[in-house]
């Protein structure tokens, strides 16, 4: 259907030409799905924009040829892009959920596309078509009249999908279209996409760094590294797939169960709904206890109350109910007691690009908690401690200590954040989605580092994540939250055996076997308890991952 031959893309950077993609060739068959995989900066998105003839708008240019319906076109010559774009090839771009103009309704954004590409349609026909396509992507057609801010992230993603599908394209490119969504929302959207592919006879190009999607959905895949396509079976591809997180059993470490150091009992917190007087419970009687040397996983979808619980643990939010005790003492609202507890706790947050002060060098960033808690022992001793910690988290001190955060990659920043969290020798380490924005290989390395630090330093670790696979690999104990309530708690094996809640089953399936998850959704009507549906966990546990973790 589409044949790309020798595609090379270039960007001018500071008087030089940087090659973003080099000599890439691939075929896309009719009604097939092609995965375009690679780490950040490998040139995946550049390929997508080149296919739409829009690289020039991004300041770059492309060379090579593509064959579409028997006609050969050059990437650098003026192909009939106006005709091809959207009517033949459409895209759901990265962060598509933010691509709607906030001052226009969803309907306006959808009909605008038709106005440009199918000018023969009248206003009424355009509206009818827009409503029809909203229904196709399983949205209420009444959302035609809504503004983007009135939709949730998942709904906006579906609306972006509707916008891409409105002209009935033959090829749909999904550029990291579900990155940032929780596994259940992601699974639901991909189910809609797969259904539409079958129904409309489309071909899909899925651009992702999530190998799980490629394994589950794609007929074929191309792996890019630094702009070069990797040969099948190359060491890089092997490394990429071996780093893929799959549900696995956490290897048994020495039994470290002891007296919990931090116990939060029956924590509740409600917020007022914006624009109304109604309140909703963000967390509802949730209890969690952290024991030295063990990792507790806090798992749940977006909006399940994970971050609210973390914020109450750090006293950033005052809970409506419940109590926190630390080292056996109940922490009241006394500021000195709170500060004493905060000194014993380290925090690593989700976004590595936002969690470090941009104007300070790594040495100052890591040493900062020492100053906050007046634990500094002089510049030289602090620097020595920082160097030692950087080495422990896998960064060479002499290379990285004088760098600024913007000179580090996402994974390196997360390592710096972990070093900072450990500088005060805390007893508790809380990690809020520490790997959700990282590439697969780096994700695994960071999880290994966390597991290693927990064991070596006998840290009580709370790992907050929506990725059940990550939690299953490193956590001794998992707590599942859903709409602010604790729906399951126990070791991963226990959760597998006693997955009484429908939500837990969905979470397990969506994280492991997308097609199985879709079958589950087909069998269970929404809102139904889902009885009689067994959990399907793939028998293949990634041995390489388990082995690597157990080698810690």
């Amino acid at each position, binding site marked *: 259907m589409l044949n790309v031959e020798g595609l090379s893309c270039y960007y001018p950077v500071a008087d030089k030409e*940087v090659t973003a993609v080099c000599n890439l060739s691939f075929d896309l068959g009719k009604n097939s799905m092609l995965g375009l995989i690679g780490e950040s*900066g490998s040139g995946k998105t550049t390929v997508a924009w080149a296919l739409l003839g829009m690289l020039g708008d991004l*300041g770059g240019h492309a060379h090579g040829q593509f064959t579409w319906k028997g006609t050969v076109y050059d990437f650098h010559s003026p192909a009939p892009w106006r005709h091809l774009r959207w009517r033949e090839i459409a895209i759901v771009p990265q962060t598509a959920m933010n691509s709607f103009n906030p001052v226009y309704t969803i309907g306006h954004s959808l009909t605008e596309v038709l106005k440009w590409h199918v000018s023969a349609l009248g206003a009424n026909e355009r509206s009818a078509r827009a409503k029809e396509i909203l229904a196709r992507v399983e949205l209420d057609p009444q959302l035609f009249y809504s503004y983007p801010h009135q939709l949730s992230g998942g709904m906006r993603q579906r609306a972006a999908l509707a916008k891409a599908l409105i002209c009935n394209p033959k090829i749909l490119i999904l550029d990291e279209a579900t990155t940032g969504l929780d596994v259940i929302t992601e699974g639901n959207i991909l189910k809609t996409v797969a259904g539409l592919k079958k129904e409309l006879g489309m071909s899909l190009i899925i651009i992702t760094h999530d190998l799980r999607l490629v394994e589950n959905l794609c007929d074929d895949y191309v792996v890019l590294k630094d702009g070069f396509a990797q040969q099948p079976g190359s060491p890089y591809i092997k490394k990429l797939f071996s780093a893929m997180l799959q549900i696995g059993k956490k290897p048994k470490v020495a039994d470290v169960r002891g007296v919990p150091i931090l116990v939060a009992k029956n924590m509740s917190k409600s917020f007022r709904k914006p624009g109304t007087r109604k309140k909703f419970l963000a967390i509802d009687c949730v209890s969690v206890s952290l024991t030295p040397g063990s990792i507790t996983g806090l798992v749940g979808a977006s909006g399940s109350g994970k971050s609210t619980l973390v914020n109450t643990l*750090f006293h950033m939010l005052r809970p409506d109910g419940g109590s926190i005790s630390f080292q056996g003492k109940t922490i009241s609202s006394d500021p000195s007691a709170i500060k004493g507890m*905060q000194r014993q706790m380290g*925090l690593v947050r989700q976004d590595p690009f*936002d*969690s470090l002060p941009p104007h300070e060098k790594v040495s100052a960033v890591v040493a900062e908690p020492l100053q*906050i808690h007046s634990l500094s022992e002089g510049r030289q001793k602090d620097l020595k401690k920082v160097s030692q910690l950087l080495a422990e988290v896998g960064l060479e001190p002499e290379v990285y200590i004088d760098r600024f955060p913007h000179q580090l990659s996402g994974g390196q920043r997360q390592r710096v954040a972990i070093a900072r969290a450990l500088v005060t020798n805390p007893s508790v380490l809380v990690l809020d989605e520490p790997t959700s924005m990282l590439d697969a290989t780096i994700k695994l390395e960071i999880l290994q580092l966390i597991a290693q630090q927990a064991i070596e330093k006998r840290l009580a670790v709370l790992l907050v994540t929506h990725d059940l696979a990550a939690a299953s690999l490193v956590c001794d104990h998992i707590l599942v939250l859903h709409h602010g309530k604790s729906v399951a708690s126990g070791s991963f094996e226990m959760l597998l055996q006693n997955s009484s809640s429908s939500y837990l089953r969905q979470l397990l399936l969506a994280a492991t076997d997308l097609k199985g998850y879709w079958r589950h959704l087909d069998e269970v009507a929404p809102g139904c308890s889902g009885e009689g549906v067994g959990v399907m966990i793939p028998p293949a546990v990634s041995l390489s991952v388990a082995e690597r973790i157990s080698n810690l």
Partner: protein
Amino acid sequence: MTCENKKKQLPLALAGAVILSIFLIMAIFAPVLAPYDPHQRVGLPFSSPSGGHLLGTNDIGQDIFSELIYGSRLSLGLAVLTALVSTGFGALLGLVAGFLGKRVESVIMRCTDFMLVLPFLPLAILLAAMLGQGFFQLVLVISVISWAGTARIVRAQVLKVKAKGYIFNLQAIGAGPWYLLRKHIFREVLPLITYHTMLSASNAVLIEASLSFLGLGNPLLKSWGSILYYAQIRNAMLTDSWLWWVIPPGLSIAFLSAGFLLIGFYLEAYANPRVERGQIDA
């Protein structure tokens, strides 16, 4: 502003620095550079430029060139002092409002709004008439009318910095408000404040000239605005004398103001958070 734009701005910023240096040398060495005492009658009134009086004389026979050189003292001194006072006051209020939030923010911001909606020139005239015409009174008048813009912008920037993840992180591990304000928020807002100081200085030069031109400055102080004021009331525009009586002080005002602005534009590159990014997202 990208790194490339910053590079493009560098020659302009250097030009601004040269202009300011020239005026600074003029102001510091005025007694050496000026051929006459600007307050003394040293020639015939309304003399044309000659070897003895490079820019001729004014209506009472004072040397215009000497007035111009001494005028740089007032314009430059007033610009710098006003910029420091107005930006300092505005930035302090902006920092407090943005950081503390709640009622303090509401009160400060409503005062700011009030100042911003008042018509600028009538307010300046009224204040100048009420407070008097001395140098420090002028500084006060110009500061009072120009702090509000800085306060508003600094407060907006503080809100932005306050919402950053790393600030939340530091709060969670026990950093107090004073620590955060001093160590991080002020540092992130500082480039913006520096840029605004330059803009305020540029504006102060223009406002002082406007007030003096309208006769609201001190007639005994030699400033470029007062030279223009006397030129205007003695009908210099009706004779050829505007060439040496109006154009030199006019150009001096324009150049000094532009000098501050050119440096300000360069500093804006640092005030802009996107400045360090030059990478392409592939």
